[in-house]
């Protein structure tokens, strides 16, 4: 089928297999390698992207479902300059170890900020409950997101 979608700010019109999983479409057809696959069933959150500014797991969606929608990954956030503050906060605070969960984690945080620019610590914790991390124990990730909320800038 032919789909029309906005991916990281670019409008695309593409003939695709609608049954292809969104994660495969983004990684293989769009070369957006920040989108990681960890469990293939929507449980680990590594493949989280924004669909119309809401966090979704791209392994549980089909590419056909994004017709007429807007998709954002960290590559898109970098283009608009929106990645700067959050990635520096993650880096400075030691919230990135192996880094495999990081892009998904950032997208969940971003979805939260779109909804609520001043979330409480509990709301932050809740926003990333679907993103599993085995390295950090989440503490430093939560702190990083709190610092973004507070507008703390890192070099």
């Amino acid at each position: 089928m032919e789909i029309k979608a906005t991916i990281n700010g670019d409008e695309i019109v593409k003939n695709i297999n609608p049954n292809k999983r969104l994660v495969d479409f983004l990684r293989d057809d769009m070369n957006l390698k920040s989108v990681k696959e960890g469990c293939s069933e929507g449980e680990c959150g590594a493949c989280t992207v924004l669909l119309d500014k809401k966090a979704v797991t791209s392994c549980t969606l089909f590419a056909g479902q994004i017709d007429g929608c807007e998709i954002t990954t960290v590559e898109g956030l970098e283009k608009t300059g929106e990645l700067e503050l959050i990635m520096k906060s993650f880096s400075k605070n030691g919230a990135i170890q192996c880094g495999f969960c990081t892009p998904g984690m950032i997208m969940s945080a971003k979805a939260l900020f779109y909804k609520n620019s001043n979330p409480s610590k509990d709301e932050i914790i809740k926003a990333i409950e679907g993103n599993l991390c085995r390295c950090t124990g989440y503490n430093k990730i939560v702190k990083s997101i709190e610092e973004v909320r507070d507008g703390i800038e890192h070099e």
Partner: protein
Amino acid sequence: MNKNFRYIGKRIERDDSLDKARGKALYLDDIEKNNMLHGKIYMSNKPHAFVSINKESALKVEGVTHVFTYEDVPKNLYCSHQWFPGADVVEDENILQKKARFVGDRIALILGESKEAVNKGIKALEVSYDELEPVIGIDEAKKDRSIINGDTNLAFSKILSCGDADSAFNECDYIIEDEGSTPKVHHSAIENHGCLSEMDEFNNIVVYAPCQVVFQVRHIIAKALDYPYSKIRVKKITIGGSFGGKGMPILETVCAFASLKTGRPVKITMNRSETIMGSRSRNSTRIKIKTGFNKDGKIIARKIDAEVDGGGHFTNAAAVTMAMGKKAFRLYKIKNQVFNGKSYYTNTVPGGACRGYGSPQIHAISEINIDNCAKKINMDPVKFRLINAVDPGDKDPIGAPELGNARIKDCLIQGAEAFNWVERKKHIKRKNTSRYSYGIGVAAGTHGNGYKGAFPDFTNVNISILPNNRIWIKIGIHDLGCGTVLTMQQIAAEVFKISTKNIDVPQGDTFISPYDSAGTQASRVTFVCGGAVKKASEVIVNKMLENYTKLFGCSLEDIIYEDGYIWTKNNDKISYGDLADLVESKLESNLEVSVKYNSPGNPAVYAASFVEVKVDNYSGLVEVEDILAVHDLGQAINKTLVEGQIEGGAQMSIGMALSEEIEYRKDGTVKTDNFSKYHIINSPSMPQVKSLLIEDGEPGGPFGAKSVGEITAVTPGPAVINAINDALSCNICDHPATPERIIKAVLNK
């Protein structure tokens, strides 16, 4: 000890994290090669069976290029655990198996031009099984009704002892016995297993592996394929977590075989279910402990019987059993102790290294037992531990290397104070309501610093000062996410007096890295590899200074060097790189050294965790309300990295205590085959971890540092269980303490 460090202990930022956040770091599955074949392993659906495979229907699938089975691969047996040729193991693995020994065992490889074709090929493959009786669990293994390998399912047994425990029990005022179990744990690195290999223009096999020991991968491939070591290039690439899980080669032999056979690049990946079922796990155990002690709290004798589920292949059956046993002698002073360890083959996923390597299992049960001993004489459990804990400089009672600057008492004393243990212990029950029970718990633990005393533990380092003022350090390390590269950079920076930003430490590559005997495992990297980097840095800095005296006709005492520059009162500053230039032009030499470094010892590290839990009497759910983790790590090289280890280790340890278990059905299939059924701690269930560091310096460690990565996963879990037992006045010893087990304890109250 001089603590005026420039770089050591500082919260320096690692240089790989921004690329990881930007999605620019290339993990295995992000790498594509021209003309690359995609591969997938067909894993056995049966736990114990001879396999017959008809390739035809799979080969008919459009895009499928090859199907390989046992019939096609070299028949050289190997043991994936063997990291160097001298390690004594049982070799019982093939590249692809004829007899499947667990659900998930590799029985065929399908290659194709696309992932889709390969997936279709997997579905089309016709496999028939000649089934044997499956052996699931230790009890079944012990019956020896159905034998997995050789003539008994007993894979390994060993007794370690000091004194005379049997007769010493007669002299004790009290004896407390406990028995408990620990689960098979999935490492849960968020990146699944994968491997990529290709042939280069010189007919070398090049393997891109997210791994922990490039020289082990080389050794195993050389063995399996009977291919020269010198023609196998293993490159460690960016890894999405390991925790021991990516230590043993799982896909590397198959992948290398496929590239050799087809001449094409081959990428093989596993999904989550395949990784849970078909890689490695923490060994499950059943442990019985009997401790004899006197009224004054002094332990007189202890007997430990430990049974280990080794899984379908031998792998680490001996190593993990020995590791558990040895730790039992290094935490408390127990004059009479016997450890009787046995490991068994079962038709389940083979055991492998998993953060803590036996320590989480042995301490899980022994620390519950210690609490029960204290309870028996109404003694505070911290005090009971203090009475028995080892002291700095103590010898190991069974002849392993000395304990070094063993600061467990500091961990307990300072931790109890910081946690306000005594007061909280007094008043915790006041918090109880009809619905919730509160409790607090403590646990102590120990771990090592490498292999010294058991296996060769040395590494080689090559360091150059390059003309553009960069320091190039070649050493066979593997950053598994912990910040190993930065750790090496900070150690070198301190010696060189130059920013970490000027120091490059490429990771393990068997064509670049000088030989390293044991890899990034066994908590050896900071202590051994860090020690090597410090030593080699000192050697090359001396060489730099000597060359300077030759070029500028001054004496060593005149030289000042700092921030990458070197000068004297009479000579202008030049950079280290400029000096390297001059050394080459004027002295026909270069600033480069190669140093072999043997580990100077194997001191112990210690930790204690203090925990408060809130138990829901209705649902059986446990919340960890507060946790303080105290670590005797000698000296933190980077506090942010250390906290990251402590917080992440706590997540794993609490998971093992409360919710994580790879569960098998009687028929050998896996119940918990994905994250919807295998529950690791997520953000709402994770407490804020407070950490306290005991930095008293370990002689022999680089700037006094010793290990921390593995021991972080040892004490939080037992402290949680002790807190639950405190809350419910029960004695849960079986892990994980699931809601079912908690409710049972509540009902028995």
